[in-house]
């Protein structure tokens, strides 16, 4: 596509864009600008040109893309570019496999990962109510996504190196922001096991973080930035770096990103035919 076509893609009168591409871009744009208004008709619009499995893939990709790039921006990823491009020679360190990449040797394919069993994932989700089992059921007709999305959620929200209470507080903040209590229901055992109850929920709802430790406050301010405007100020990031290692910050960023768009889409699916039992 030309740059002009790319710029106009997503507009109603875009040229050089197929009906499937237009439908997907309409959904993506609604998610970015009008997510509280997403409803059954948006999914019907997609299902006119996509199969159910394809629709799930488009929606999940939009959900990831809603939050993932903001996470990288929050880490200052663009600061390593020059005029929008990575110049390897200008970087402060040598990156992994740079030399191998220049060789003519065939590169190894990306190996297929071991897939988590969908019944196991659903069983865990049912017991913890994290993630919402209905979200995993929505993904379940797709051959890959329940396993890969579910594995990412398990790795960064329910497991990992940062204490679980902080990741669960992030989940509550997200649910409050997108006004979707079902994303982090009070009865979730992941929340109760982390000592998160009405006191914490009320404080988050009132944006009064003084009841939390400095470390929790730093993580929640970072989460607020990513979930709210998508931007994280220098001051908030400096506080985050004072409390967390770089390895922990990466985990916190992914923990928000895997839920940021997904929770908004899940909210819009509640009450639609897409979540009805099959």
């Amino acid at each position, binding site marked *: 596509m030309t740059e002009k076509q790319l710029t106009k893609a997503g507009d109603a009168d875009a040229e050089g864009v197929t009906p499937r591409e237009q439908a997907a871009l309409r959904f993506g744009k609604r998610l970015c600008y009008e997510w509280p208004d997403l409803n059954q008709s948006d999914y019907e619009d997609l299902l006119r040109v*996509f199969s159910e499995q394809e629709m799930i893939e488009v929606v999940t990709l939009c959900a990831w*893309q809603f939050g993932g790039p903001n996470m990288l921006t929050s880490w200052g990823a663009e600061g390593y570019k020059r005029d929008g491009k990575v110049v390897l020679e200008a970087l402060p360190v040598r*990156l*992994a496999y740079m030399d*191998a990449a220049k060789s003519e040797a065939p590169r190894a394919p990306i190996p297929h990962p071991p897939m988590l069993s969908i019944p196991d994932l659903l069983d865990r989700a049912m017991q913890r109510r994290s993630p919402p089992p209905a979200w995993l059921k929505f993904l379940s007709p797709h051959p890959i996504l329940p396993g890969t999305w579910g594995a990412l959620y398990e790795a960064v929200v329910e497991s990992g190196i940062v204490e679980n209470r902080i990741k669960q507080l992030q989940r509550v903040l997200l649910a409050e922001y997108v006004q979707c209590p079902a994303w982090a229901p009070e009865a979730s055992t992941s929340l109760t096991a982390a000592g998160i109850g009405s006191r914490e929920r009320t404080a988050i709802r009132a944006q009064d973080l003084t009841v939390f430790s400095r470390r929790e406050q730093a993580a929640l301010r970072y989460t607020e930035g990513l979930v709210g405007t998508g931007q994280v100020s220098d001051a908030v990031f400096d506080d985050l770096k004072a409390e967390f290692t770089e390895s922990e910050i990466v*985990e916190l960023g992914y923990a928000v990103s895997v839920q940021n768009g997904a929770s908004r889409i899940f909210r819009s699916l509640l009450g639609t035919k897409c979540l009805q039992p099959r």
Partner: protein
Amino acid sequence: MNTVDIPRPRLSLVPGEVVETWNDPEIEAHFRTSYIEGTPPPTSLSLDAHNRDTQRAGRRFMWFIFHEGLVEHRLKELLRVKIASWRNCDY
């Protein structure tokens, strides 16, 4: 005078010397693909390499949804670029 707001890096890049000691074919394949295809940028991989388990889970999810799914790749590239732009991010 016009000023240009140049973002500054906030996390360091994990050096190649560290990542290569993992001898991890999956991570190597992600890096080598990144140099050839340009996306994701190798700097993004070198940022999330701070947390190996997170990187593995995150990159698996992204690789399989972008490259091994059911929907045509061009459509997904369009979504990737346009949503990043609507969210005021680089792509």
